[in-house]
């Protein structure tokens, strides 16, 4: 198996190991959820996997290519990363923000070519923001901005897509359309890993889950087999029941009392 493979990731912050020896894999062409309670280290792990921050130890590879030692621009052509709640004060147009996604493919003085313009347009279409192309990005709502940042990552045309809480701030319709989009990206052969807070979304949409707590992987694997009531109780300390949706045949999670 190839896709995304990480081995023995350790990250220290303030003298404390916040990622303590994580191994994980995401098979190619799948949509995986990274879940775990607050402070489990999800964001930190994602930054290491995206190779935007070098971990203390460990290796990350994508389709056999080691990401951590790869030159930055080459890496950015393989892996795109959407940060959580990224904001700006710079009044760029939506189109200019999405165009930033083309940076790894263009040299500094190179103008955007026709191919890039097409990709920028398609990325805006994919998140349903084509009509906003000329809007000032600082005037958008949190949800609209989140979709623009997703379009920027799509414009990178990287076969590995990592996202930190991409459904944050989104209303239910936008949440579902974001996950549908991620699944269609995965179905074209890309490898997608998204940190999610909402277990229901993870259960309903993701092929596999990676569950982390206290900087370690506590469980990983196919979604229905992994997201069991016992696991949820152990990791989150809450009682849950897992049903099967009669229509979609996907797991649905009901929460009882604490």
């Amino acid at each position: 198996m190839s896709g995304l493979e990480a081995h023995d990731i350790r990250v220290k912050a303030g003298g404390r190991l916040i990622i303590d020896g994580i191994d994980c894999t995401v098979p190619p062409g799948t949509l995986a959820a990274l879940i775990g309670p607050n402070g489990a280290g999800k964001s930190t792990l994602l930054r290491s996997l995206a190779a935007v921050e070098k971990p203390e130890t460990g290796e990350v590879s994508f389709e056999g290519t080691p990401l951590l030692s790869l030159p930055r621009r080459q890496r950015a052509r393989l892996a795109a990363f959407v940060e959580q709640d990224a904001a700006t004060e710079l009044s760029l147009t939506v189109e200019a923000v999405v165009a930033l996604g083309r940076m790894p493919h263009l040299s500094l003085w190179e103008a955007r070519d026709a191919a890039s313009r097409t990709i920028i347009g398609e990325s805006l279409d994919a998140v349903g923001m084509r009509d906003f192309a000329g809007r000032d990005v600082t005037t958008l709502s949190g949800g609209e901005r989140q979709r623009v940042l997703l379009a920027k990552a799509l414009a990178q045309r990287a076969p590995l897509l990592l996202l930190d809480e991409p459904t944050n701030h989104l209303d239910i319709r936008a949440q579902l359309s974001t996950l549908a989009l991620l699944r269609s990206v995965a179905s074209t052969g890309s490898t997608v890993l998204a940190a999610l807070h909402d277990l229901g979304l993870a259960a309903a949409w993701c092929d596999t889950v990676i569950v982390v707590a206290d900087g370690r992987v506590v469980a990983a694997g196919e979604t229905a087999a992994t997201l069991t009531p016992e696991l949820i109780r152990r990791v989150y300390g809450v009682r849950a029941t897992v049903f099967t949706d009669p229509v979609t045949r996907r797991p649905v999670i009901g929460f009882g009392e604490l």
Partner: protein
Amino acid sequence: MRRGAVAWGIALGAVLVASITLAVTIGPAEIRFDEVWASILSHLGLGASPLTELRDGIVWELRMPRVLTAAAVGAGLALSGAVMQALTRNPLADPYLLGLSSGASLGAVSVILLGAALLLPLAAFLGALLALGATLLLASALGRITPTRTVLAGLAVSSLASAITSFVIFWTVTGDSYREILSWLLGSLAGARWPAVAIAGIALVVVGIPIMFTGRLLDSFAFGDTSAAALGVNVQGTRWALLAGTALLTGAMVSVSGSIGFVGLILPHAVRLLVGPGHRALLPLSALVGAIFLVWADTLARTLFDPRELPVGIVTALIGAPVFALLLARRRADA
């Protein structure tokens, strides 16, 4: 880059060339537009100058180098200002922010008092770099270098250098050197001849022009460091290189003109009103507008109270301070 920005670039380039030749015609000795061009062409080896030797000297030895220096310094300061505002994410940042101007002043005042005025550009340049070094050292001593820490450290270094400069002036200055020092502290292009053109011009070409091509890099910082890193940008390397580049550029400009305020602070904002905040258009257009602005500010400085001259820094401050106040008011209205 949008087509509008390219059109602005061509228009402003034409305005700059026209401004330079027009500014050369203005002064006590009346010299016509076509005579200026004939003189320029003759010095480029194309035909003979129609002017008498004296008048040709006024064009070629006095006014031309001064106007060209003004253009180069204006371009360099406005460009540095735009980059500093981006790097520190502070719209009120200017090229002197990191103690550059006070360091340069200290260096300049020291050599004027030592009677070694020939070394002035060098001393001013070294003073600026020394101040920058002290600023960055202090900023890194405070922890990881962040824009805010850098600005605060610059403020501290700036105050210290100013205090030492004041002390030196207070303790040792006599009548003769006083005027010279004052005009330097206020910024003046009165002494600009061809060597000044060479210093400012070389700095602009060697350091300034490469910086103008970093617009896309600066745009990539819009959503923060991590976001830029995810696009394959070397975040720390870019920040250091640009900081050092603008410092070199500003240091070179200060060394020939003294510290001329408000050019680097105000003009990038004016350009943003024209073409928006995207840096690919902002950087080259700021340089053009800065050049045009300082050419005219200096022309005003030498003609307004003819035959007496104002230091051009007074003119830029008289124009810049009200504009600055307007900017602050606009920001308040936005917030």
